[in-house]
């Protein structure tokens, strides 16, 4: 599914939900995408991995969405982990806003999943 320019795919890997974002995440799609990801995570799940490996662009709205997901999962004693290619524009923005203070940022989805299951 697409919201504006952003694509979203949900996948469950055992107890972990993986939300894969593609395209560009900005104010046009951030709020709605955040809601849909949150809805996709059952309370039974261990946690959520947001896969940003193929996301081309993220702005402060996208960052705000990620922070909001982190807060929400945290309140449900669930964990959030993010995967983004190092050195890319998304990783750079995550770095600038020091997102790793809210949730770990991994270089790969598998390591992010393993981190949660770990």
């Amino acid at each position, binding site marked *: 599914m697409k919201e504006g320019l952003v694509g979203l795919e949900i996948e469950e890997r055992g107890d972990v939900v993986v939300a894969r974002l593609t395209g560009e995440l*900005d104010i046009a799609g951030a709020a709605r995408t955040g809601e849909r990801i949150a809805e996709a995570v059952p309370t039974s799940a261990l946690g959520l991995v947001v896969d940003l490996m193929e996301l081309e662009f993220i*702005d*402060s*709205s996208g960052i*705000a969405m990620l922070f909001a997901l982190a807060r929400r999962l945290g309140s449900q004693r669930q964990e959030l982990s993010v995967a983004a290619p190092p050195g890319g524009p998304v990783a*750079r923005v995550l770095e600038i*806003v020091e997102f790793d203070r809210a949730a770990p940022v991994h270089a790969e989805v598998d390591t992010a999943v393993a981190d949660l299951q770990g």
Partner: protein
Amino acid sequence: MRALPELFDLRVKARSLAYLFTAGAGLGLVTLAFPHDPEVMELELIVLAAIAVAIAGVVYVEADRIRPWHLHVALGLGTLILTFANYYVGVNSLYPLLYTWTALYAFYFFPLGVSLAHVAFIALCYAVLLVIQDPSSPIVRWLLAVGTPVVAGLLISRLLERMGVEVNTGEQRERALRQSEARTRLVLDSAPDAFVTLDRDGIITTWNVAAEKMFGWSAVEAIGKPLRSIIIPPEHRERHDKRRRELIEHEGAVATQVYDVVLQRRDGSRFDGEATVSRVVIGDDVILAGFLRDMTERQRREEERDELMRAQAARAEAERVAEMMSGMGALVDAALARRRLDEVLADLVAGVQKVLGADAAAIFLADDEQESLHLAATSSGIEPASVEPIPFGDGFPGRVARSREPLFARHPDQADLRDPGLRDMEIDSLLAVPLLARGAVTGVLRVCASPPRRFTADDLGMLRLAADRVALAVSHARIHEREHQIAETLQRSLLPERLPDLPGLKVAASYRPAAAEAEVGGDWYDVIPIPGGGAGLVMGDVAGKGLAAASMVGRLRSALRAYALEGHDPAMVVQQLNRLVWTEAAESQMVTLLYVVVDPTEGLARWVNAGHPPPVLVGGNGRPQFLEGGTSVPLGVQPFPSYEEMSAAMAPGSTLVLYTDGLVEVPGAHIDEGMSRLMEQLPGAPEEPKALCDYLLGRLVPPRGAPDDVALLTLRNVPLSDRLRFEVPSEPEALASMRALLRRWLRYGGGGEQEVADITTACGEAATNAIEHAGLSGGKPFEVTGLLKGREVEISVRDFGAWRTPREGDQGRGLSLMRALMDTVHVSPTPEGTTVRLRRTLREAGGNGGPK
């Protein structure tokens, strides 16, 4: 009546004179033979007689050469000879009586004046004689001598004048009679009918040429035979005899009877005839004269004539009916035509005038409130709008509208007509009927007749028939007009009110409705911003016109927008539209569609063509080319047609021209010709899209409008330069396009991938703020300007909304991102809006290796 003497020629007069002299001389000599006075001198008398005979002889012989005065002289000599004879014989003899003869001659043959002179001479001679022979009572003798010849001569001449012509013109009358008889015979012989006369015994006495022809008996053969034996069939002879006897014995001068008879020719064949027989009394005799006519011939001719007249009458009737029917047909055509009311009305007025043979016709239409009428169309040629509305009940039209009853008037009052166009017309009669539709009075139909035309009851019936059709036509036209208005409104609402701002692209469109009478067409265009910086260009044409076409356009437009925004490929979008048209549109609904997606980032135009005229791509070098290929069937023709996507490079500076066939349709020419004309116009045309649209319409579309609607859409891929300036709608969805253009520009400026991403992200943050300032629901577009100075990049984002102090958290994060990504960030909020200035020096070795 001519004087008697003039009736005779000189020869007759001369001979008469000769007879007179000879008779006189003879009488004189005869008296000598009887006992007489011995004193009478015989010798002298014989000499006188001889002189008289001699004169008579000369006159008689020379009668052919004689002159009128010779006769006077001769008669004078005669009087002298007579006087000498009296002298010798004595006045008591018979000789004085002979004076009467000469006097008679003079009166008879000479004009009155001359004859009186002769009489006077005679009287003189006689008076001299009397005086010489008996001097005793001279006065008595004078009176006798003068009076006797004068009185006798006058009396006799008067008497002869009265009856002379009858008696003496007998010869001429005879001649005239013979001529008359010849004429009569000629007439009778040339008469088409047989003419027969019978004597009282039924024997034929006259048999004309027609009779010869009719019966085959010549006149020679027929005359002298009894009629009954040659032309009366044996079984009818008895009846013939009976009728003949009745006629003969009929008392009275003339009796004429007409009989239908059966007659028989010489060869025995029979025919029906008609005999017109008259009983003619000639002196004591009675004859029968009859005309016989062959009725078979006449019947045949009469039948032919009747047939001819019937045929003529039938033809005249047929022509009248045909004329009327064609008039009625025109009314029905007008009723069924889907055309504008005012045009239909003009046809209707003409049609009604024709049907009724009226000298003037007019249609008044009622307003919706049913309160007043206005003159809507008239044959008189005046401008209907110049006539004031007529309240119901006023004048002839108003009265008809109120009463809803037909009205007939002779010599109507001008003031009541309410049609100034009739002012100079002499009107014998007027008929007006209401136009009724669904129980309401929609108007009044009025016709006028000028002498000699006069309306009758038949005309009223005909006018009512015409009125039914006119009412139908009017209501159809009104419905159609309303439909047209709705369709027009709908169509206008379906065309974009304003085209979107597309960063890096410039679009313009024009829509030119067809020439006045045409209906709202199904042309439409649309420009859809494609997330990511592209533009979807739509140019379509729904076959058909009016409301149905307009509503189809509405559905297609919405559907296409939805499919496009879902991010489907052009081919997929068009396929889905085809499904829509195929499954939902009315039967045989056909839509041509051209869908082009322009991706300025890639410099690519991708299109799918469903039966639409190909777009034109004008390259950066100004050279135009049709984007042929990829053309498939129109929408709604097949359930699963294959729509193929085609693509062409669309470098910065190039322009795309989309249009509907109205632009390239040249009346009477193949569409290729129109397309060639378009191609000829493009080199040298303005680059700016709006100017280009105006330029093309001005050159390809007649000022009064094309036969069909014309839609034209142009898009220019604006070439990049060191200066960048564009507007972005204050909508979150517009940000992607903005970023796409910025990336292009930054790459153009020589930015490395990292730098391009950083600057784009920073600008995105500034733009997000601008949208928030304008209110998330959108407001005034904000403005982005970029400037490259060597490796220095400066970008300003200027909005026209209200500054909001960034809160800690989400929004505040935007500002800190900008600061982290750019060398300098300068925010200057003012009451009119906020400007964010971002600067950064490029250090990476970018893909383009710096500005070109």
